């Protein structure tokens, strides 16, 4: 249960139930679909760019608590950032999930996304946490 308690935390569960980032944008600049074929997590990210700035970001779709929370947390983190900042933050997050070295300073930049750090203790769920971030990487490449 210890591992579980460090994963199903209030912050993750509140994000997984929250709906404010789960919506369609009226005039998205670009969309990107991502899914995990084995478990069925399936999300679509929509972004509205203002020059180089991610002005708005949202998602639709379905999946487990971990994938939904991770998506919502990522959206909170990346909204208002430049493309370059977003790329950096995504890389830090993916490094953290893969248990690669992440500096204290880098960790702090992740804000709430730090809550997903312990997912690396549950290998079966790592993909759930990564889905949104990889999808966002692909989305950034398109814009």
């Amino acid at each position: 249960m210890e591992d579980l308690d460090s994963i199903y935390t209030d912050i993750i569960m509140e994000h997984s139930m929250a709906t404010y980032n789960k919506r369609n944008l009226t005039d998205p600049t670009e969309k990107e679909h991502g899914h995990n074929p084995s478990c069925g997590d399936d999300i679509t990210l929509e972004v509205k760019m203002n020059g180089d700035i991610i002005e708005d970001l949202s998602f639709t779709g379905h999946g487990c608590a971990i994938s939904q929370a991770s998506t919502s947390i990522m959206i909170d983190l990346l909204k208002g950032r430049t493309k370059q900042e977003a790329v950096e933050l995504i890389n830090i997050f993916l490094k953290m999930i893969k248990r690669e070295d992440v500096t204290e300073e880098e960790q702090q930049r992740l804000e709430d996304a730090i809550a997903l750090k312990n997912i690396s203790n549950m290998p079966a769920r790592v993909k759930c946490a990564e889905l949104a971030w990889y999808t966002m990487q692909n989305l950034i490449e398109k814009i």
Partner: protein
Amino acid sequence: MTSYEIRKDFPILENKNIAYLDSGATTQKPVQVLKAVNDFYREANANPHRGAYKLSIAATEKYDEARYKVAKFINAKYSEEIVFTRNATESLNLLAYSYGLENIKKDDKIVISIMEHHSNLVPWQYVSKKNGAKLDYMYVNQEGEIPINEINNKITSGVKLVGITQVSNVLGTINPIKEIVKKAHSVGAIVVVDASQSAPHMKIDVQDLDADFLVFSGHKMLSPLGIGVLYGKKELLDKMKPFLYGGDMIEYVYEQDTTYAPVPTKFEAGTQNVGGAVGLSASIDYLENIGMDNVEKIERELMEYAIPKLKELDFVTLYGPKDLSKHTAVISFNVKGIHPHDVSSILDSENVCIRSGNHCAQPLLRYMGIDSTCRASFYIYNTKEDVDRLINALLKTKDMFAKWIK
């Protein structure tokens, strides 16, 4: 013999103190099977069919013996009708390439059910696209059964091949194979039966079913991974082209031409998995010692104990036939408000192993309007205590999530 006695033969279940409820994915292996495989590698391992020395002959004999045993297990007319493959998926691909691509023509129809595993779906999709045939589906009703009128409406003239699973790996539905075969033969179609979820659990008689082809995997019936079976009527196998080309499947090889060995060797290119076949043979011995009637009875009792218990949980939604006589011990369900993947993680923390996801049956789940399910699948080594552990773990899951679910 009871499941309590049977369980003692499965060290992994005792050592890990788990309620293993994922036998639909793969079963655990009894010590008798592990010993048979071990003995083979210690006493009789050599390349079969090739050597003129005693050890190679011993390996060949073991391999042939396994084939006889499988033939008898499913009541095939000839042992040559048994082709060893890696698993059911490879058997179905063999059929798609060696039968499907060669015999399904433009505008012909292939009919399969919506509850097929991807392995009995994607190969036929490939054949139909490649040859310009039409792929049609028999759909299920609310209870996850294929109604008789659906069978009669879909299997009509122009249908050349019908693919059907005997038991759904998602819903546990037992399909009326004999009726489907009869209907298919009346319109001149051949039938491919996927017995992956049935051969380990019930008596199969291919002659009684009159199935043209039938496939299953050894690893879902106590055997090691990597050994599977394709049964085919001899007259059909004889006419088919090989699937894989290479060593041992030939008769004469010239610089520009080759003649092929007779069935089943024609379909078994390369060094055969004798160790796997020996394991499968030992699994059949193990199952027949219990008796397939008894296997069915043990599983039925577990299913009939589990389903009412699950029904008592008001936060659980059950899928599959309400008529339990059409239901095997494969049980799909969902916990309201909690994704199956989360349920499965929490059950895992209680050492209860279930499957979550789409179970390689995306079209079925899409048709049913759900994204994924939890699946508990039982086998002869499971006990009522395993069911109780599942129920208790589900109650814990609900409690754990209660504060967040609105």
